[in-house]
Every structure is written in structure tokens, then in C-alpha cells.
């Protein structure tokens, strides 16, 4: 039983926290959000150089981390600073899938991801799939040594910046079978790939992606045909651990901003932090923060477990954090009052990150359903 970070992770945390607090200020971040690309290539390169991307891959994959607690260490800091750059999409999802399924040729992309000069996006969600990971209707039809992709993917985060889209498509089975799903590495510039981008409410960009009879070679497939679900589910779990940690970090910032505001803001002749009703609400938020931290630790600690145990802890963590996160986002805004409603105030962005994280890979209710099914 040991709840301390290893020395390496402690260093990673310190480095990242220092870098972001120096460089990733509210002004800088809000300018990034307003930019056309929705992220800063310069900061991306610098963070990759600091080893932040490498920390998300194992040594075998060319990185120096990749375990649950590496992911939480990195993402808690990203969340704390409200970072909008697509670490989840390029590294955890895109890079992670190539690393776990790709052949030697394809693995080269992982090196480029770790070096910071390649972006990827997972094109998986579909209009009627909501959060169901197994529901894939985009079709892949083999003819000769070519594969024809057809269908639509929704809210593909980081699609515009990605050199390759990793596209899930069905090669067999019914619409919601786990079997029959394949992944393809599709250059975004391929003919017939129509990308319609838009900004996201909490920063960054996504796109609707239409595949109009897109033809790629069979060599674009990651792994064997129809068997991608296991890897997808594993990466979805990793993404959930990342999202949990990111939200936890954001909650830390939200409560810390509120703590300071309550100490300094005067009303009726005294700091509003002296009002007992507000004190008690803060106390409840701090308690939920501890719970959120524990749930994140549980999920990270079980990420390499058997799928059943892994998914049980992941669902538990994301359900708890979904509830606690909403409470923290709403209450910290309320405890501030009007100032937190303004775009310039750091909390506004942080609250958006917290709440919007609930819309990736299954919201609070979806996670509860999963937990119930897994614990039956």
C-alpha cells in the first residue's frame, strides 16, 4: 500500500506544473481558443520536448511511462491549467491505438507522435451511437487489396489537425456487435474524406467527417480485420482515466480559485468566506475532491487489470467524478457570483472543461449503467 508518486512522476508533475503556470496563462489560453486551429503548435512542440507525450507511452512503445499513474500525473496537470491541446486525441487515443495494433511500418507514426510532429484523431463516434463503443455503422468493404469506407463520423476531435484519421468501420457482424470492427489509418487528405470543422465549447476543435466511397489500401488496416474492439475498449478506458484525472485537476483549480476569492472578496463589511453557509458548501466540495481523487487512483491502479475489473473501476471513477464535477463546477461559480460568469475569469474556462469532459466516452448516467451491468 503506497500512495506516493514515484520520484520520476513527481519530477514530471513538478516540471509540467511549473511550465504551465509560467506559460499557459488565462490570456495565452484564451487566445489559443480563439485561434483558427484551436491549439498552439509552439506549446505543443515545447511540451513534447519536455517529455509530456513520451510519458504517455511505455518503454516498449518508445516512451518512458504509459501506465495508469503516468496518465493521471500528466492529465491532472493539464486539467489544472485548463489545457486545450489534444493530448487525449493524438497521444492516448491515436498514438495508443497505433502502438497497440500497428505493424512495424505503422509503428513509425508513434515515434513521430512522441517527438511532437504528428497529430492523429480517432474517428469513431457516429450520429446514432451516442456513447456506445460497439455501435459502428461506417462500413468497410474489401475488394481486391483495396478497402472502401462509407458513412459518417461525428464530433471527431482534432480531425482538422490530424495527418491521419483512425477510422473505425464495420467489416462484419450486426450494427452493435463487438466483433467485426476494424480500424483504418486514413490520411485526412484522402479523396472523399469530407471534414467539416467547428470549435468546441470548452476549447479545441472537432469535425463531422463524411466518408464518400473513400478508398484506402488494405495495408491501412490496424491489426487483423474485425478484431479492433478489444484495443478500442482498452484505449477508451485509458481515455477515461485521463479524463478523470484532467477533471480532478480542473476541480483543484476551481476550488482553489474559490478559496482565494472567499478569503479576499468583501461583502457586508467582511470576507464572504466568513459566512457559514458558504463555508459549509466549500467543506462539502473539498470532501468530494478527496473522493474524486480516490476514485481516480482506483481507476488508474486497475487500468492494466482484466477488462472486467478495469471497466468496473473506470465506470465507478467516471460516475463519481461526473457527479462531483458538476457539483464543483456549479457551486464554485455560484460561490463567486457574477465574476465567474465572465469569459476573462479563469474559472469560466475551467468549469467548462469539467462539465464538457462528461460528454466524452460516456456521461455520468452511462457510467452508472456500465457499473450496474459489470457488478451484477
Amino acid at each position, binding site marked *: 500500500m503506497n500512495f506516493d508518486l514515484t520520484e520520476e512522476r513527481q519530477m514530471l508533475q513538478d516540471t509540467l506544473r511549473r511550465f504551465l503556470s509560467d506559460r499557459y496563462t488565462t490570456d495565452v489560453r484564451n487566445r489559443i481558443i480563439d485561434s483558427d486551429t484551436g491549439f498552439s503548435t509552439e506549446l505543443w512542440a515545447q511540451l513534447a520536448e519536455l517529455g509530456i507525450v513520451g510519458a504517455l507511452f511505455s518503454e516498449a512503445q518508445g516512451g518512458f511511462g504509459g501506465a495508469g499513474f503516468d496518465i493521471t500525473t500528466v492529465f491532472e496537470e493539464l486539467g489544472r491549467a485548463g489545457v486545450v491541446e489534444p493530448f487525449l486525441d493524438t497521444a492516448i487515443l491515436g498514438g495508443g491505438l497505433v502502438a497497440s495494433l500497428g505493424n512495424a511500418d505503422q509503428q513509425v507514426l508513434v515515434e513521430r507522435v512522441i517527438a511532437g510532429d504528428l497529430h492523429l484523431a480517432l474517428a469513431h463516434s457516429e450520429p446514432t451511437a451516442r456513447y456506445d463503443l460497439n455501435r459502428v455503422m461506417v462500413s468497410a468493404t474489401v475488394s481486391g487489396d483495396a478497402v472502401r469506407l462509407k458513412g459518417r463520423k461525428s464530433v471527431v476531435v482534432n480531425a482538422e489537425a490530424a495527418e491521419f484519421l483512425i477510422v473505425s468501420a464495420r467489416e462484419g457482424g450486426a450494427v452493435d456487435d463487438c466483433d467485426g470492427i476494424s480500424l483504418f489509418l486514413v490520411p485526412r487528405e484522402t479523396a472523399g474524406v469530407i471534414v467539416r470543422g467547428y470549435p468546441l465549447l470548452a476549447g479545441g476543435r472537432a469535425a463531422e467527417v463524411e466518408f464518400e466511397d473513400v478508398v484506402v489500401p488494405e495495408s491501412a488496416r490496424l491489426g487483423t480485420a474485425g478484431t479492433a474492439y478489444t484495443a478500442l475498449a482498452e484505449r477508451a478506458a485509458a481515455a477515461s482515466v485521463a479524463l478523470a484525472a484532467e477533471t480532478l485537476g480542473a476541480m483543484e483549480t476551481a476550488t482553489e480559485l474559490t478559496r482565494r476569492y472567499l478569503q479576499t472578496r468583501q*461583502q457586508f463589511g467582511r470576507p464572504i468566506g466568513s459566512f457559514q453557509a458558504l463555508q459549509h458548501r466549500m467543506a462539502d466540495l473539498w470532501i468530494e475532491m478527496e473522493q474524486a481523487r480516490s476514485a481516480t487512483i482506483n481507476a488508474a491502479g486497475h487500468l492494466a487489470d482484466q477488462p472486467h475489473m478495469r471497466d468496473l473501476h473506470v465506470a465507478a471513477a467516471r460516475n463519481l467524478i461526473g457527479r462531483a464535477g458538476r457539483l464543483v463546477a456549479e457551486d464554485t461559480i455560484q460561490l463567486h457570483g*457574477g465574476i*465567474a460568469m465572465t469569459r476573462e475569469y479563469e474559472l469560466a474556462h475551467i468549469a467548462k472543461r469539467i462539465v464538457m469532459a462528461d460528454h466524452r466516452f460516456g456521461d455520468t448516467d452511462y457510467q452508472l449503467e456500465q457499473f450496474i451491468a459489470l457488478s451484477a
Partner: protein
Amino acid sequence: MDLSYTAEELAFRDEVRDFLEKNLPQEMSDAVRDGRSLGKAGHDRWHAILNERGWLAPNWPREFGGCEWSAVQRFLFEEECCRAHAPRIVPFGLTMLGPVLQRFGSQDQKDRFLPRILSGEDWWCQGYSEPGAGSDLASLKTKAVRDGDHYVVNGQKTWTTLGQYANWIFCLVRTDSTVKQQEGISFLLIDMNTPGIEVRPIILLDGTHEVNEVWFTDVRVPVENLVGEENKGWTYAKYLLTHERTNIAGVGFSQAGLDAVKRMARVEMSGGRPLIETPHFAARLARVEIDLMAMATTNLRIISRAAAGQAPGVESSMLKVKGTIIRQEINDLARRAAGIYAMPFASEEVEGGNEPPIGPDGSGPVSAQYFNNRKLSIFGGSNEVQRNIIAKVKLGGGA
């Protein structure tokens, strides 16, 4: 005990419904339903339509051109407007300033300002809040110093809703700093075109420009623009704040919002069936709907008591708290219902384009509205202040 409306009330409701069907432009109700901003032109247009029908000022006496409707009629009117997705009537002139002038204004002020509120010639905004005051409204610092037949105003107001459209502002200003906070405040009407006034936009967390800062530097205001007596402004301000607000619970908004959530949850699929049939979402929806059904009756009970001449006391605080909780919960449900489509930022540019919408109908603005409506429990007397009021009245003693 009788839960049904009278025949007259039902006839009135039908009349309103019919009017809205015929006179509310489709593109306007579409915009309201989809959460798109109308701009000043849109507001002005709806204002003119209602004015033509004589239905602009439900709570004004007939002598000033109002409808003099009963509380129940006003409620029905508001409910029908919400159901039809009519634009909200901008309240600053009609609901806020109007009654104050009618009660405390000079004959000149009534003659000069009231008709122009109805005609739409004047767009009023409210100069109450100041930075640093928050819930402690009476601690305001904006100063007005008498100089001949003018007041010279210096200071800053904030959270001034739609101030960017306004040509007039009613302001609370400090005219005496030597007495108790509440006793040195006056109520001034200020032409926004007076030199020394600067309006600076505040962009809210959802990217909208609804509110503003208004800065006053040596702004000269004629003394005839003082409402009532000098240093009695706090009385008028309180009258304005507690002046019967039949729609404080926002029942109509909540009903319209809940309908929108249901529409979305019927098309959004989860695990192969419509979201509305999945048990956890259905439970959330049912709980809010149950709360709202009760709130509608609570609202009517208080309205009917007000109609019987009983002044609403803590009830309006209760309606404010629970009403905003319900509205915010519905916003939260809408965000949940939208699933992955809650993530896109449906900015005006995106929405205004020719592209088809990204998610199911109505999903575009849900997250922006969720964040924007956090204001409901903050502005207009925060829910904490309302709870203080409830406790003070019912328990006695200070907070």
C-alpha cells in the same frame, strides 16, 4: 378548492393563443426556440407588434396605456408566450421603471417617459449593480454631486443587461456619504448620450455579449431627472425589486425547456433505444417534471393570493430559488440529452451559416445555455440572499 380556470380566463387564453398564432413571425419563434440571439431589431419588431395590439404593458394601469390585467391573466399571457417561443419582452422600461415612475415620478416624468417606453422610442437599461457590491447592493459608490441645476455623476455600473442597445439608464447613485448606506441613495434617469458615459462590453462564459460595464466620468444630469426625493432612492429601488413579478418562477420557460428536452430525448438513441426510454435519464426527467408540476401550482397559489390582495412575502423568494433550480436542472438535462453533440460551440457564425445543424434539432445551444443560465441563481438577488430573506422572515433575527 378548484384547480380549473374560469370560463373568462380560458377565453382570454384562447385569445392570446390565437393572437400569437397569427402575429408571431415564424422565424422569430424559431430563433427563440433554438436559442439564437434576436438582436435589437428583432426585439424592436416584437415590441411594436405587441404595442399595436395594446398588450405591451400587462401590469400598467389603463390610464398609462397598460392592460391592467389580473395576476392570473398575466400568468396565462406569459405562459402562452413561452409555449409559442415568443421573444421575452425586455423588462427594464416596462416592468421595472414604468411602475416606479407611475408611483413616484413627477407628472412631467410620467408624461415624458411612459409613452416613449410603449412606443419603443426609448430603450432603458438598469444601473444598479456595481463592481465590488455584489449581493450587498446598498454599498454602491457611484456618486452624484449637485452642481447648480445638474447632478455630476462619477463612478461605474456593471452587469448592465443589453446596455449596448439602450439610450436611457435608470441609476442608483450616492448623494450623501455621511449617513447610513441606504439613506444616501438617489434614483436618477440618465440619457446614455450624455458626454462622459462609456459602455464597455462584458463577454460571458458562453461567448455572448449580454451585459456591460457603464462608466460615468463627470456626467451632467439635469435635476429634473431625479425621481422622487433626493436620498430616498433606496425606497424606490426596493419597490422596483419587490414589485409583483408574476413570472419569477419562470414556469413557462421551464415548460418550454422541458418540451425541448423531450423532443431531443425521443430522437437521440442510446443502446439501440430512444434515450427517453432509458431508465436513468427517464428518472431525471420525471423528477424535474414532477417538481415543475408542483411549482406550477405553487406559483398559481401565490398568484391567486396576490390577486386576493395578500402581498407576497417570502413566497417570491421561495419561487425564485426553486424556480431557478428547476430551470437550471432542465438546462442540465438538455446538455445530457445532447450527448456528444453537447460539445460543439454553436457560435452565431456557425449557426448563421448555410450548413445543416450538427446534432439533433435543438442540441446546438444546449451547453451554452446551461452555462449562461448559471446566472439565474446569481443575478436579481442570488439564491443565497433569497435564503437569507426566507430565514430572516420566518426565524426572526439577523443572518
